[in-house]
């Protein structure tokens, strides 16, 4: 064993006849062994030979050498690590046996039963939990320890069972397509898309609901701990790093870090188990960082992370919908029960007249009981409606919060600048007034204070609308609303970026909707367009409308970067974002869509008005009868 050489990395497979996968990196073995104990005896024996070659390495000697070297002057001659002579000898062995043993002694820490248990669990994750396939490089791990439960145990691959939902995604290299998940109208489908920048990969995802989770935990005595990445059949994500506090566990895929996690039925690493299978051949750009703490930050890794999150988002949408369906079912079930009870009561009433006095008495008591049941069913229906209304209100509140957050960021930035200007202006007056030499400055400062105050007032007015009720309907002049957004609220941003706006809406177009909802929609579309236009020379945002007898169609366009064909199917998905760098949370278009749908309207992306680049959103809203 040579310390710190790179020879292992030249080939990914060991030489014939073994052709084993070389998983290690430069020098890793030495460090890992060193961490376990100070002394190592390496024994190796070839088949048909009775000689066992033994090599003893005493790491404590190397550390002593290192210490003494540090104390020497820079110019002094020092012994090199390669000067250390390790002891070696031959032992006699059985001719039939072959292989290599590492015996580590003078261990640094005592292995408790708990430590062994952890080692057992971590080692079981070394290969993917995929029993259908035989490992290309088979190996076994056996633990022998003084503890009763681990006196002679073979480490088995961690299996996965009891999942509420299992999803397997694969690819077809010949056709150049990758499977991804798409949630559409109540069902979860696999669709094929062109190869993504992270390369072809397989993803197996298991979702566990509460009962499934407890079953899994009880049966396997193991935690549900998210998604792992395997390259050519060996784990690559950080592993064997036990963290007692699950909140501090590394989340290198960023599943739990997503904004607003906890709201909107988001799944977390505690609801999901899964594994991604990548290979050297298909994913050469995904590179493990040498400290084994994750991956090198590059486009391929970024895309892999995005890929996984996107699939989780689709699962989330599916389960959210399933919940809604369940709710409707319960509600209509209750309604039907109520109806059945009514019929039953009527039927009893009709037979009661002809029944004998004894039966009549019995029927009366049944009638009374039925009345009670009917009462509680009716109450349940009422409670249910109330609950539904409440959760709808809650969701609206979340939506408001999210758009408020976006606005708050813009507002506080503006306020900071404006306040600074006003404050220092007043201070300048206070410090220098009167001074005839500075007359010009006093005039310019007072003018600017006045202007800045007006700007602040506008911002506050806009902020106030968030304090208003969310359900009030009012008559809205669409043109005025949009012109106000362009010319007052967004005027600074638009000027700063040099964006020209065009509004082609009839003066007398009146909509009867909630003002904030409409403002939210255009708020989001405008900020999206600003981001999309950032690299344009000529920048245009255009809003126009068409009316028919029963609906209004609004076209909102910009000539910016546009929406890629491959992204069109997912831009309205919650938390899908292309602009994370500019602070995009992937909420905007989702909110636009839910707002529009709440008004019984529809929104879609159509061919853009501005060729060759740009995006056009078509919103249709019904006129209320």
């Amino acid at each position, binding site marked *: 064993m040579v310390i710190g050489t790179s020879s292992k990395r030249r080939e990914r497979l060991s030489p014939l006849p073994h052709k084993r996968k070389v998983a290690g990196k430069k020098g890793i073995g030495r460090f890992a062994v060193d961490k376990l104990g100070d002394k190592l005896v390496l024994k190796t024996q070839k088949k048909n030979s009775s000689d066992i070659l033994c090599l003893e390495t005493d790491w404590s000697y190397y550390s002593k050498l290192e210490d003494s070297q540090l104390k020497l002057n820079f110019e002094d001659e020092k012994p090199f690590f390669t000067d250390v002579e390790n002891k070696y000898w031959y032992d006699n062995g059985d001719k039939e046996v072959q292989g290599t043993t590492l015996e580590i002694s003078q261990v640094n820490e005592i292995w408790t039963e708990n430590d062994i248990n952890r080692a057992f669990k971590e080692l079981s994750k070394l290969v993917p939990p995929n029993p259908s396939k035989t490992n290309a490089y088979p190996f076994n791990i056996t633990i022998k320890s003084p503890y009763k439960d681990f006196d002679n145990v073979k480490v088995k691959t961690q299996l996965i069972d009891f999942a509420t939902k299992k999803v397997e995604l694969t690819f077809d290299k010949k056709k150049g397509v990758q499977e991804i998940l798409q949630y559409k109208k109540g069902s979860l489908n696999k669709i094929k898309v062109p190869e993504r920048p992270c390369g072809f990969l397989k993803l197996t995802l298991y979702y566990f609901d509460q009962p499934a989770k407890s079953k899994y935990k009880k049966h396997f005595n193991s935690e549900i701990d998210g998604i792992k990445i395997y390259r050519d059949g060996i784990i690559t994500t950080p592993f064997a790093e036990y963290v007692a506090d699950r909140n501090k566990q590394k989340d290198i895929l960023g599943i739990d870090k997503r904004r607003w996690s906890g709201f909107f039925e988001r799944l977390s690493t505690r609801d999901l188990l899964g594994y991604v299978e990548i290979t050297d051949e298909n994913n050469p750009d995904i590179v493990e960082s040498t400290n084994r703490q994750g991956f090198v930050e590059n486009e391929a890794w970024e895309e892999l992370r995005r890929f996984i999150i996107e699939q989780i988002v689709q699962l989330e949408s599916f389960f959210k919908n399933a919940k809604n369906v369940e709710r409707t079912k319960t509600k209509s079930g209750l309604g039907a029960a109520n109806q059945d009870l009514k019929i039953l009561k009527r039927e009893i009433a009709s037979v009661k007249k002809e029944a004998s006095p004894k039966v009549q008495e019995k029927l009366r008591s049944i009638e009374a009981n039925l009345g009670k049941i009917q009462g509680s069913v009716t109450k349940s229906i009422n409670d249910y409606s109330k609950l539904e209304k409440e959760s709808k209100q809650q969701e609206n509140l979340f939506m408001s919060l999210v758009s408020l957050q976006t606005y708050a960021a813009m507002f506080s*930035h503006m*306020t*900071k*600048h404006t*306040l*600074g*200007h006003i*404050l*220092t*202006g007043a*201070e*300048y007056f206070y*410090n*220098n007034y009167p001074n005839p030499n*500075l007359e010009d*400055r006093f005039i*310019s*400062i007072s003018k*600017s204070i006045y202007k800045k105050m007006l700007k602040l007032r506008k911002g506050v007015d806009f902020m106030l609308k968030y304090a208003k009720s969310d359900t009030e309907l009012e008559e809205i002049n669409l043109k005025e609303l949009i012109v106000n957004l362009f010319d007052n609220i967004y005027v600074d941003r638009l000027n*700063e*970026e*040099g964006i020209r706006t065009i509004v082609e809406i009839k003066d007398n177009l009146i909509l009867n909707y909630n003002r904030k909802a409409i403002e939210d929609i255009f708020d989001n579309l405008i900020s999206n367009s600003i981001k999309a236009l*950032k*690299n344009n020379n000529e920048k245009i945002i255009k809003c126009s409308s068409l009316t028919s007898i029963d609906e209004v169609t609004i076209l909102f366009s910009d000539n910016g970067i546009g929406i890629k064909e491959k992204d069109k199917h997912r831009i309205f998905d919650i938390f899908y974002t292309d602009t994370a760098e500019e602070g995009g949370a992937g909420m905007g278009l989702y909110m636009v869509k839910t707002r529009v749908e709440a008004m019984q309207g529809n929104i879609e992306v159509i061919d853009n008005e501005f060729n060759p680049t740009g995006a056009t959103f078509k919103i249709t809203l019904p006129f209320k009868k």
Partner: protein
Amino acid sequence: MEVTFVIIDDNKEIEEHPLLFTLEDKFKNVKFYSNPQEGLDYIKNNLDINLIVLLDIEFSKDDKLDGHDLLKEIHNSSSLIPVILWSGINQTNEEFSDFINNRAFGFLSKDCSLEEAMLIVDKAFNNLKNSLDNTIEDWIISNESDKDKPIYFTSSGESYTLNEILKEIRLQTPIGKEFSSKLNSLTIDLLLRKKENL
């Protein structure tokens, strides 16, 4: 000591900011650039005078350089110029590490008062005043005759006068940097061997 303030901010309104007026009242020379590249060019072409820079961090997306890049460029041109970051955004630790690496002199929030701002500005001014190059300049002003005396000889046999050395230091040439570092070592050596007292 004469000093020129260079303010780089893409927001043109800043030109009329009371802080700029205050700086002009107190220090006379104030240059405002709303184009970051022009500001950087001015700095690079005027390394031989005393400069203090006030720098915005977030520029409009059209500008190729943002505050971070500018700071790096200025620091690479000369480490003697105090650069004060003047920004409306709240800095995260990550961004601050960049400032530490590129030696920003200080940070001013866009909503701070003139009094708070002038504390940092005065500190930068004093820092500049006590720097090696300005000490040499003060010396030359009060001892005009020493100006052209050769005081530094390189191993390749070239000699530099006090005035020439001043220029080399301000332009942060290898000779200038070498001289500064050797002068410091010499002073420490003299003090340690009790050849000199301060």
